[in-house]
């Protein structure tokens, strides 16, 4: 057995436990050190991932291929940015507890297993490890009613989604007699044998995973949980877990159920259209920027799913590029949101941004970049993400999907541009507190990535191409 395939995961979980012990022993004021150690663990793991060989290990439970590595690096980036953003926020909100980075690191371990899962059992355990950490993180501000409510709501609905997923897994197991992806693929090579029971099982699995990426119609929890959870946790939830759940969805749909494309394609198309419509229409009336981001993320998942609906390697490449651009612009937007603080109190209303163009031009400029990118306006990276998924849809002959995507982008542009209007053309609003260096670094870094993506898109495109090929190969 080639146990060293999972070396990055093993090292990261050992780091998490070491940080936990360190935090418990030192106790007083260990949060900053623990956070830095967590960042170091992320960096070490990223290097291990780049150095690790490809292959399948643990009796087919665990696979390392370019696709898994691509997703894992993206997950680590999302987790690291959330950890950095939590530094200042947690200090202000009196949440400085060393468990915060530990839970984020453990959750990242779960997500990495999700990206590498080649068996329905490792899929489920990775998903549960990831979700359980995030339930706790959502309720981390336990003295605040909103946060406790967010944690409880996410926990109850997440447990329901896990139940549906498990039911689907059991139906698939009942059909195939195995949970191994490779063997399920072999059992399904002849689509004649497919029974309604198996299709119901696949529908349940898609339901459970769609809940995790908060695609409509399984998005009900998103606005409340996004709004109630501490903002760094919200930024974490909107980046890394989405990538991990998307990785699972792509791998399960393409690898074991790839021969049933005709069966699940219409399902993904439906989910995608509903997410795009709901994400753009329901966001219009929002006044809280965190709720706005929740609806925006629902919409973005809809766009990303267009690539999966196409069912081709080009489509998968589109999804991967979309996720890269989405992670960075979403993290950057949240860095700006966390920096919105007046006299020590966090501001969460869109109107609080009024006059930002005058009081803090740099922060306003960063927000403009992210909003343009989310709206899909060239030459920001968000445009290229949309371009590649629409391209894949057109190539696969799915014109309706592409047209609906373009139309909902136009609707979505309204509320993204409204934020820019509030920042530059609305008067009033005092200056925010001076922003901490950590948030400035994140906003500047992601802003640069988002703006300059078109200059050098090669590395990301090539990596996404290789990853998509690995999934089909």
């Amino acid at each position, binding site marked *: 057995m080639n146990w060293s395939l999972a070396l990055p995961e093993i090292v990261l979980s050992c780091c998490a436990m070491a940080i936990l012990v360190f935090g418990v022993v030192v106790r007083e004021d260990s949060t900053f050190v623990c956070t830095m150690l967590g960042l170091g663990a992320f960096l070490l793991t990223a290097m291990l991932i780049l150095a690790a060989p490809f292959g399948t290990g643990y009796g087919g439970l665990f696979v390392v291929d370019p696709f898994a590595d691509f997703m894992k690096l993206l997950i680590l980036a999302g987790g690291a940015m959330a950890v950095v953003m939590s530094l200042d926020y947690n200090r202000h909100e009196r949440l400085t507890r060393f468990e915060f980075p530990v839970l984020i690191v453990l959750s990242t371990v779960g997500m990495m297993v999700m990206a590498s899962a080649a068996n329905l*059992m490792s899929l489920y355990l990775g998903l549960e490890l990831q979700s359980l950490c995030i339930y706790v993180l959502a309720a981390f501000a336990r003295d605040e009613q909103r946060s406790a409510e967010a944690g409880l709501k996410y926990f109850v609905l997440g447990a329901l989604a896990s139940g549906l997923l498990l039911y689907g897994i059991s139906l698939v197991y009942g059909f195939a007699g195995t949970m191994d992806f490779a063997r399920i693929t072999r059992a399904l090579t002849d689509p004649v044998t497919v029974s309604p029971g198996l299709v119901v099982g696949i529908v349940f699995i898609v339901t459970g995973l769609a809940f995790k990426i908060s695609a409509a119609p399984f998005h009900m929890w998103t606005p409340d949980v996004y709004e109630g959870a501490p903002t760094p946790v919200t930024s974490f939830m909107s980046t890394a877990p989405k990538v991990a759940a998307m990785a699972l969805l792509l791998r399960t749909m393409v690898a074991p159920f790839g021969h049933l494309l005709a069966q699940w394609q219409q399902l993904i198309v439906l989910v995608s259209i509903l997410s795009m419509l709901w994400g753009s229409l329901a966001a219009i009336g929002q006044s809280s920027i965190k709720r706005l981001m929740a609806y925006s993320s629902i919409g973005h998942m809809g766009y990303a799913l267009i690539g999966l609906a196409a069912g081709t390697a080009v489509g998968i490449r589109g999804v991967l590029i979309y996720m890269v651009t989405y992670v960075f612009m979403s993290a950057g937007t949240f860095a700006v949101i966390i920096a919105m603080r007046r006299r020590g109190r966090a501001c969460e209303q869109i109107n609080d941004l009024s006059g930002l163009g005058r009081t803090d031009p740099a922060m306003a400029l960063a927000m403009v970049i992210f909003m343009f990118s989310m709206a899909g306006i060239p030459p920001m990276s968000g445009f290229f993400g949309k371009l590649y998924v629409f391209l894949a849809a057109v190539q696969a002959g799915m014109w309706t999907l592409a047209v609906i995507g373009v139309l909902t982008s136009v609707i979505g542009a309204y509320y993204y541009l409204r934020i820019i209007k509030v920042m530059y053309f609305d008067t009033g609003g005092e200056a925010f507190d001076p922003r901490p260096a950590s948030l400035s670094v994140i906003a500047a870094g992601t802003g640069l990535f988002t703006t300059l993506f078109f200059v050098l898109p090669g590395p990301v495109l090539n990596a996404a191409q290789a990853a998509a090929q690995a999934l089909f190969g």
Partner: protein
Amino acid sequence: MIADIAFYIFAAVLLISAAMVVSARNPVHSVLFLILAFFNAAGLFLLAGAEFLAMILVIVYVGAVAVLFLFVVMMLDVNFARLREGFQRYAPVGATVGVVLLAELALVLGGWKFAPEAATLRLAPRPDQVQNTAALGALLYTRYILLFQMAGLVLLVAMVGAIVLSLRDRHDARRQDINRQQSRRVADTLELVRAPLGAGIASLGIYRPITAPAAADGQAPPGSDNPEVHAPAPPAEVH
């Protein structure tokens, strides 16, 4: 023959007690029936040759989970009558949903097909000459070691999460300080006095807290005159 009889007894008691769990009015009775159901399920496992699962069911479910239920039910004093208030109102809707689901399930199972090689894949190799505890252990620690460790991490997260969300550092709490305990010496805390036989501690100027006001007057506490209290002092030997 005996096994058949045992099976029907276990199965019948299991079904009856499971029905009682949901229908009993008193929640404590519900939990007790749940324990009975667990025991009978364990019996069924034994008959099926899965002795490890049977023991786990008794130890984990009866020993921990059911006792925890009982504890919570008794501690919280939940008003179950109020919880059931809406039952009559929602019963028709619930029944409709249930019937639709049942029909769908019947449809799904009616058209069920197996993958060609499913039958051979599903047949787990029966361990020969090995107790199933050993067989399970060998599988868990070799083939499924990754899943086993992942499950361990999930439990660790549950533990950390429970502590994060519920533990509060109270500053007025009296904490155990191991260093202080270790550095205490006998001389700091213990005083040896020589007490005359039959005199009682009051004559040494040591009083119980309750009798302290009486002692302040310079008199012996009222109880000390009672001969029965003092009387036959055990022949304690002080070395």
